[in-house]
């Protein structure tokens, strides 16, 4: 591993966006339907499932990394796939961090849709699937917010990315792991510059999504 230079800053930034973006997409693809299901269906143990989901908001990233490391290490069940120390492993580890957040916020968003809307949709004769999709659309702002918060968590995450990615120069080094490396090497100026880039990237993505939301394009 070597220190970050200006030349690979763009590469590191793009990899950060790729890993965080993919983890957000995958985590949302699982979390949104799961949250809608938990929020809108009645089943035994629903309260316990919600409690577990909300508790997992605090799931330590390093544990997610450890779990994925175990799965894809040579001794692990999927060791032969050769995924460890690749962006794929980082995406998988970070997806686990996105799922509880998106699921939980989706639950809250669909539950909070006006009961009169739910009644109206039912009264029109909507099937269970039609009702669920309509309520999800009514809760759209909340669902977009869930994705944004999920992205916010993983773009700033370091533990899991470091553990399963290994911070390999040109391969798995992302902004957060690069900051850690530069700090350890005593390159505080570079670490601070990378921190500024990380902050800018995160804010730019949030700003862009918020803009789309305000224009009702999301």
């Amino acid at each position: 591993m070597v220190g970050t230079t200006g030349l690979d800053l763009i590469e590191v930034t793009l990899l950060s966006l790729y890993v965080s973006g993919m983890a957000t997409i995958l985590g949302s693809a699982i979390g949104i339907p799961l949250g809608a299901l938990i929020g809108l269906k009645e089943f035994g143990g629903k309260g316990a499932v919600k409690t577990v989901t909300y508790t997992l908001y605090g799931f330590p990233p390093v544990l997610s990394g450890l779990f994925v490391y175990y799965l894809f290490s040579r001794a692990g069940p999927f060791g032969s796939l050769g995924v460890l120390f690749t962006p794929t492993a980082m995406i998988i580890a970070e997806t686990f961090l996105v799922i509880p957040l998106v699921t939980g916020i989706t639950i809250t968003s669909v539950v909070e849709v006006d009961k009169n809307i739910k009644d109206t949709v039912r009264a029109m004769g909507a099937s269970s699937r039609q009702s669920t999709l309509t309520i999800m659309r009514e809760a759209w702002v909340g669902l977009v917010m869930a994705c944004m918060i999920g992205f916010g968590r993983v773009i700033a995450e370091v533990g899991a990315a470091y553990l399963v990615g290994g911070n390999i120069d040109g391969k798995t080094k992302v902004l957060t792991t690069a900051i850690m490396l530069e700090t350890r090497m005593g390159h505080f100026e570079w670490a601070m510059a990378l921190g500024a880039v990380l902050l800018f990237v995160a804010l730019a993505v949030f700003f862009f999504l918020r803009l789309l939301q305000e224009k009702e394009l999301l």
Partner: protein
Amino acid sequence: MTASMELHGVAKRYKEVAAVRDVSLAVRKGEILGILGPSGAGKSTLLRIVGLLEPPDSGTVKLDDRAVDARSVEAPMLRRKMGIVLQKPVVLNRSVRNNLAYALRIRGWDEASIYMRVDEELKRLGLGDRSNKNARVLSGGEMQRLCFARSTIHDPDVLLLDEFAANLDPANVSLLEQMIRQFASRGSSKSIVLVTHNLFQAKRMCDRVALMWDGEIIEIAAKHKFFEDPGDERTAAFVRGELVY
């Protein structure tokens, strides 16, 4: 007149509260049946049972002489044949046009028919110029008219109205009452149940009127008899505007 809907010995409780007690009622084809009563009498619960939104704890609901269950898999299909307007105007977070189209899409209409039918309805509503605006920017009266149109756009035989005019100004009430009369005149198979606490509205709109009190129907009669010669003391007091709670 034959009955389009019947309730036999229907009862419903919410925890300790008996909202509806042993109600039997027939809604005839071609009539507007008013259900009057003070707040908390169980009118809305009764309407929800008729609309298959709530199953009764006991008793039977019949639609066209067939017992139906709000929990059954066929319940959504049966609801598609009805129209329900709730007290609070509820529009979906989409355009005026798409609010109307939604009611037809749910019912499996093809897109070409939806387009034509929605255009007709928009013209009738006088909302053609705002068809692409989000329905949430409409005024309360416009929203309720849109809700009414959305509930009748598929030409249902049964229309259920729950205090539809509760929060509207007289001009909008008058417009909606006119829309209800137009709907009723579409054919002799139309049945309308109008839940209201407004005596004057019941008098203006209904063919028969029932008084609900503490979960029970205490009197049901033709409008003239109900208002001029009620059979129950409580009805007489209610019609006189005296406190019967």
